[in-house]
């Protein structure tokens, strides 16, 4: 009976230590790899750290899309309901569902000049779907 109990205790201690370690490592890793989301207003107000990757989102301002004269570089403005505007630079082919006048979410970092260098641009899958981040930032028509 005693050895049986000791065995059970070992298992419980092992499980406890194991799961504690896992959770601690995970949380440590999470601290490093979390991307914060900022609206154009927050970026313009200078609330964004220059270091590290962030996400930003808003509406792609109509007629703001400009292609570089060489390469695949492209620049456009994102804006929110407050009218704050951030210029985004992206090197590569824009995703299928990217359009002027529609919402978008960009991944990347802000440089010293306030230009957002996007490494990834997120496309939507379903045009009636509003990413939770963009709720309240831009207007969607239901038609």
């Amino acid at each position, binding site marked *: 009976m005693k050895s049986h109990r000791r065995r059970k205790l070992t298992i419980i201690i092992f499980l406890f230590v194991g799961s504690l370690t896992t959770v601690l490592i995970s949380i440590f890793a999470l601290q490093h790899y979390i991307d914060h989301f900022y609206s154009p207003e927050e970026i313009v107000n200078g609330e964004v750290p220059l270091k590290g990757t962030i996400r930003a989102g808003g509406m792609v301002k109509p007629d703001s899309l400009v292609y570089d004269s060489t390469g695949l570089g492209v620049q456009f403005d994102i804006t929110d309901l407050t009218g704050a505007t951030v210029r985004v630079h992206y090197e590569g082919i824009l995703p299928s569902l990217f359009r002027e006048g529609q919402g978008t979410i960009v991944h990347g970092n802000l440089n010293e000049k306030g230009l957002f260098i996007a490494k990834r641009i997120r496309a939507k*899958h379903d045009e009636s779907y509003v990413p939770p981040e963009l709720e309240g930032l831009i207007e969607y028509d239901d038609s």
Partner: protein
Amino acid sequence: MIPELGHFSAFLGLMSAVGIALFGFFGANQHRASWVDMSIRLTKVQVAVLALSFLLLILAFLEDDFSVLYVANNSNTALPWYYKIAGVWGAHEGSFLLWTLVTAVWTVLVATRARHIPLKLHGYVLGTLGVLSFMFLAFLLFSSNPFERLVPNVPIQGADLNPVLQDIGQIIHPPMLYIGYVGFGVTFAFGIAALATGKIDSAWARWVRPWVNVAWLFLTIGIVLGSWWAYYELGWGGWWFWDPVENASFMPWLAGTALIHSLSATEKRGAFKNWTILLTFLTFTLVLMGAFLVRSGVLSSVHAFAVDPQRGLILLTIFILVAGGSLVLYAFRAHTLNTQVQYWGVSRELLLLINNALLVVALFTILLGTLYPLGHEWFVGGEEKLSVGEPYFNAMFVPIMLLLSFALAIAPISRWKHTPMRLVLNVLIFLGGSAVVALLLPWILADGVHLGVSCAVALAIWIIVTHAIACYRQRKALTLGFIGMSVAHVGFAIAVIGVAVVSVYTESKDARLEIGESIEVSGTQFELVSVQQTESQNFIGERARFDFGFQQSLYPERRYYPIREQITHEAAIAPGIFKDRYITFAGPMDDNTWGVQIQNKPFQRWIWFGAVVAGIAALIAMLDKRYRRLSQRDLETKYPE
């Protein structure tokens, strides 16, 4: 009339579910064969009425009946007929009708194909499936009715199916995935029934194992199809994004994989009984959690369906009822299960325990990463919105999989109870040989050495070698079970090689080319030869021709769908065993230049090939004679009635 008939049929399905549940449970409880028989008969009724309901929705799509809201939102007269059918499961309501139909099919299969199991167990299994079916159908009918009419303003034209979904992937990926998901509902029901009867032994494990394998096979195929589809359809050559919705399908897969392994110990040694039961619950709970995450819109994802808070609430309720209910039952009945199994050293039990521990740890790190943004929003609140990036998942998942690979290579020579140290040391010798081969690989690929890739490839080769040797040594007494295990592990190793190599050695170049200009990627020249206008029923576009290598050509396309004002990039891929060439065409950049992205992706196919091999292995293992040979004996000796 047709939509109303479909709606009514689904309602009849709901009624049958009530019958299946009541007759199943009380038949088992009162030990009345005639009641369980009634439940079995009702499963046939249910599958018939739900199939009818589903067919009628297909009919509404084929007939372009835009008076039905769901059809109007997801179809169009210009859509080819096969996409009209696939459009049935192109959005939430219709896909959930398919989900309920799949549940009914699984239920009728368990009812008719598992007649050899004891009456009590059979009754409880059917009863549980009836309850699940009832909850799904109630959710469908009361919050997601695909037959809802759009009167009096019937549109002349539908809004079209999302162009991204107009693909062979949409036709087969969701049904496979749902078959897999709901298949774990069957193992869940077996878990509940085991607690209800209080008897879980090797016979029970043998009855469950084939069902787990089939569910796992379909889920595996479903995930592979999704990955392959994303790879060519989204146009960027990515095959896994750690997107919340992908994670929602991957977490039950990990739990299901753990369940398959835990069941083997329960069958052969009567070990890990409690744990096996908990895994049947965990797997299906994760399936429901996935359904909640995908269909409630709480998560930001490229796959998510449109938002509806009420639906989310109902799905959350179902999730809590199933998770909570099963755990409460477990708390009351777990004492009926007892495990007293001795093993020491590097025994097969220990390896299975390590497997399960690592898979569950991997699962929880993914769960944490997936739910963290939600948890932060709910508990910390505020305006700040977070997301957890791919680096987190890679940093957590990859090391765990390498540890798992290590344990896996020893698996084929391990013995139950205790493995002689001599055998373990023998196997370790092969690791050295595999490491040499793995270091040679970068030279074959003519690229730099990457330590992580070499480690992964060394472990993978080691796994393949040890399993081949084990099968050769046992060639006189090889069972399908052992072959299945070996093939599955080799499939895993193949996938590991693919993931490691493609992740590190992919080369990608973006360029802007004039006609006749070329660009070099990974030693191959790609020349833009021409660009032509294309046109079809529902889109217009440009199609480029690239020549490369020895008279090979690729034709990537950029399409514009006027109905939804949407652009898609149809990438062109030259698949190969050792490398994929992948071209995305961006269309005109100015008057005479065209945007293009060209990628060289070595060993890309190995990922899916490995997963498919593992899926086939599940089928091989399922055909093992002992599942049939022993079941009659079990029934006579262990369950005399």
